[in-house]
């Protein structure tokens, strides 16, 4: 009933599923950790309540998102061995140390300081607390650094030799391995993507609060203990100030960072063209070589059987212009690539267009917000706010689409051009992999379904005045090694008053 091909396919589906689920949470927490550091820094500098309120609002969401990232990340660190043991044996001498450095420099840093960040405000003083927040933010960045170095090495391997056991072993300097050719581009592009993703979520929550305040339905659900609903006008004004502040900050990010990201993406694409041309051919839908200027296919339906793109809408010579900065430059197509080295065109063609389309939509939203800001209407255009809400999850979709583009584009190899995916898998029977895949799907939907539901609920509640951060009736916990303070009796929880 099953054969090895099934086991391989199941293992690939399992990896794609667990890594995609996992990646959502770091993509959010990298940006959010930095945002929290900025908010706390601004609060220390200006002493304005609004930054403190926003910090306490977002730190609760961060705690849940971070915990989800930790538990789904543990699965990833074992998945290489359980499902890709041949790959692990052969690349371990190179990739293992990079991942070990990720654990030593990033995971422990995050874990060690997270407890202080979440619960320690009243125990260590503001400056030390700010340091802890910065350490957590730094940890998320260092983590991205190492894991993207690993991924980039698989795309553009350098600095290695192959020993008699078939293992990739370091040859020359570790510098060449860590800073392999695609790494700087991938790091910049991915970290900016994480920042944009977070900015759009923050913007959507701000926009939602603004629309809600405008609709006047803040007084509808009076039973959720919202102090701002106690008929306190000053409280309402402060919640609105917080919503405005986060919307404004997010829209600045969209307006400034989205264009930077488009430029960074272009550089990343040029780097890919240099090192992995087949990936770019598939992204562009270029089955055929174009000796004198390749068209840019805006839309179309790839037809892998006939090796052409049906119903293509093209801009003549634009692809050569973008990729070679010369409209008449020749551009090779997949006809120059042997069939057994060709990545799956349809997936790449679409995932790339989804990512780019969302990138330009972010730019559009940023520009729209600039117009509104210039007219002093930033908080008064409901359609702008609705658009920002609609764009709230778009960063996640773009990040996943981008990840699919780069990972599927590396196929049919795990180490580009050197080790095939088909020869990387563990010698497992298909029923074992199939059963574990089903278990992962079920558990992840329950567990991450809960996490997402809870985060959305926190977001919809809005910023409360004098936010306490972590609920005082909840257990003191952290995703860190750090113990929280001894459980406080109810009512004695250390409420940090903004006036303090």
């Amino acid at each position, binding site marked *: 009933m099953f054969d090895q091909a099934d086991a391989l396919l199941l293992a690939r589906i399992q990896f794609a599923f667990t890594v995609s689920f996992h990646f959502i949470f770091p993509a959010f927490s990298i940006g959010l950790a930095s945002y929290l550091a900025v908010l706390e820094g601004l609060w220390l500098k200006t002493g304005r309540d609004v930054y403190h309120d926003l910090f306490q609002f977002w730190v609760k969401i961060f705690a849940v998102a971070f*915990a989800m990232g*930790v*538990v*789904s990340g*543990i*699965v990833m660190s074992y998945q290489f*061995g*359980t499902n890709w*043991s*041949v790959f*692990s*044996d052969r690349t*371990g*001498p190179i990739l*293992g*140390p990079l*991942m*070990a*450095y*990720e*654990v*030593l*420099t990033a995971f*422990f840093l995050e*874990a*060690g300081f997270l*407890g202080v960040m979440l619960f320690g405000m009243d*125990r260590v003083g503001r400056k030390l607390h700010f340091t802890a927040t910065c350490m957590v933010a730094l940890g998320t960045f260092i983590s991205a650094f190492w894991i993207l170095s690993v991924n980039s090495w698989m795309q553009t391997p350098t600095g290695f030799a192959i*020993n008699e056991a*078939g*293992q990739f*072993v*370091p040859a020359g300097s570790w510098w060449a391995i860590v800073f392999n050719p695609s790494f700087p581009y991938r790091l910049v592009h991915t970290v900016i993507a994480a920042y944009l993703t977070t900015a759009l979520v923050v913007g959507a929550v701000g926009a939602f609060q603004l629309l809600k305040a405008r609709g006047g339905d803040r007084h509808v659900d009076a039973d959720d203990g919202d102090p701002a609903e106690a008929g306190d006008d000053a409280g309402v004004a402060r919640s609105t100030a917080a919503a405005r502040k986060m919307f404004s900050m997010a829209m600045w990010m969209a307006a400034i960072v989205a264009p930077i990201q488009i430029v960074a993406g272009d550089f990343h694409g040029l780097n890919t063209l240099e090192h992995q041309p087949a990936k770019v051919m598939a992204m562009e839908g270029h089955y055929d070589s174009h000796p004198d200027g390749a068209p840019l296919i805006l839309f179309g339906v790839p037809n892998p059987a006939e090796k052409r793109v049906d119903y293509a809408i093209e801009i003549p010579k634009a692809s050569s212009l973008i990729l070679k900065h010369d409209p008449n430059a020749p551009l090779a197509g997949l006809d120059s690539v042997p069939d057994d080295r060709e990545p799956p065109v349809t997936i790449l063609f679409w995932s790339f267009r989804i990512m780019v389309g969302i990138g330009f939509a972010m730019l559009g939203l940023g520009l729209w917000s600039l117009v509104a800001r210039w007219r002093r209407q930033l908080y008064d255009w409901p359609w702008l706010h609705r658009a920002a809400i609609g764009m709230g999850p778009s960063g996640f979709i773009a990040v996943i689409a981008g990840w699919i583009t780069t990972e599927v584009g590396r196929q049919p190899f795990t180490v580009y051009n050197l080790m095939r995916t088909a020869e990387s898998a*563990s*010698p*497992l029977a298909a029923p*074992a992999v199939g059963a*574990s895949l089903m*278990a992962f799907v079920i*558990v*992840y939907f*329950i*567990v991450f379904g*809960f*996490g997402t539901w*809870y985060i959305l609920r926190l977001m919809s509640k809005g910023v409360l005045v004098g936010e306490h951060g972590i609920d005082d*009736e909840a*257990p*003191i*916990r*952290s*995703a*860190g*090694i*750090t*113990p929280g*303070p001894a*459980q406080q*009796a*109810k009512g004695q929880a250390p409420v940090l008053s903004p006036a303090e």
Partner: protein
Amino acid sequence: MSGVDLDLTTVWAFIIAFAVFAYVVMDGFDLGIGILFPIFDVGEERDQAMNAIAPVWDGNETWLVLGGGGLFAAFPLAYAIILPALYPPIIAMLLGLVFRGVAFEARWRDPGHRRWWDLAFTLGSFTAAFAQGVTLGALLQGITVDGRAYGGAWLDWLSAFSILCGLAVVAGYALLGATWLIWKTEGGTQAHAYRLAGRFGIATLLAIGLVSLATLGLDYEYRAKWLNAPAIYLTSQVPLLTAIIAFAFWRSLAKKRELRPFLLALALFLMSFIGLGISMFPYIVPDSVTIWQAAAPASSQWFMLVGASVLIPVILVYTGWAYWVFRGKVGTEGYH
């Protein structure tokens, strides 16, 4: 093989062993409380038990990641053979950890389904602990190796011995959990924890004895390592020390000491761990692959050792600092 290689590889074997033991020390007691959870009364006792581990459970797992990641980096061949061989228990452990981690959070956030989240917490903790023991047992009983890969079937790990090891780890973690609660709680919950510590103390000692005897019955190499002269003069110290620790443990319970039972329970784990080391060394996959055969090249191990020798002490320092910031007993709401 040069002398430098040999030293470096042995150093890495000790670093990985340290990470695994740090994991057992730090995560063992909170998995144990998960295992004991149904024994506690709904309400106050359960909330206190939960609060006693709330701050620590989740970052402790970073040491598990270091153990796995370190194995991949320093001994890639062992990682590539062991993980597929033990696929079902490892996947079960991971899912158990995911489930209990979130059940922990969800218990407070979603009180409408607290009963179900409590059940998930217990099942997740039990599964993770049991699977860790099974993994250990399956490794000790041997793994079929074919070339540079696992050569057995996907249920080879299942045996009476591996099940026994699974139950032993469950009993041991429950003991750690009970003694941790003695230290961190007061009043009725603490009294309950004292009773549980006595019961699981007996179970743990019984399990240590059974697993030790069964290990000697597994394979000639283990018997030779433990029982041949002159090795026996050294190895016999391990059961001797274990007996002394067990005696001290009982005295500390009888004298109602608060911290000491936990430390002595950890000492029991340390003895078992040393025993495990005597049985395994120098093999990383028993009787098939030694640590030197599985080792990554010296340049990989050096590159990591530079970082690890600086970073692990730094990590221990800031972890210690964070513990100091949040010292103190768990709340006694209702006991004032």
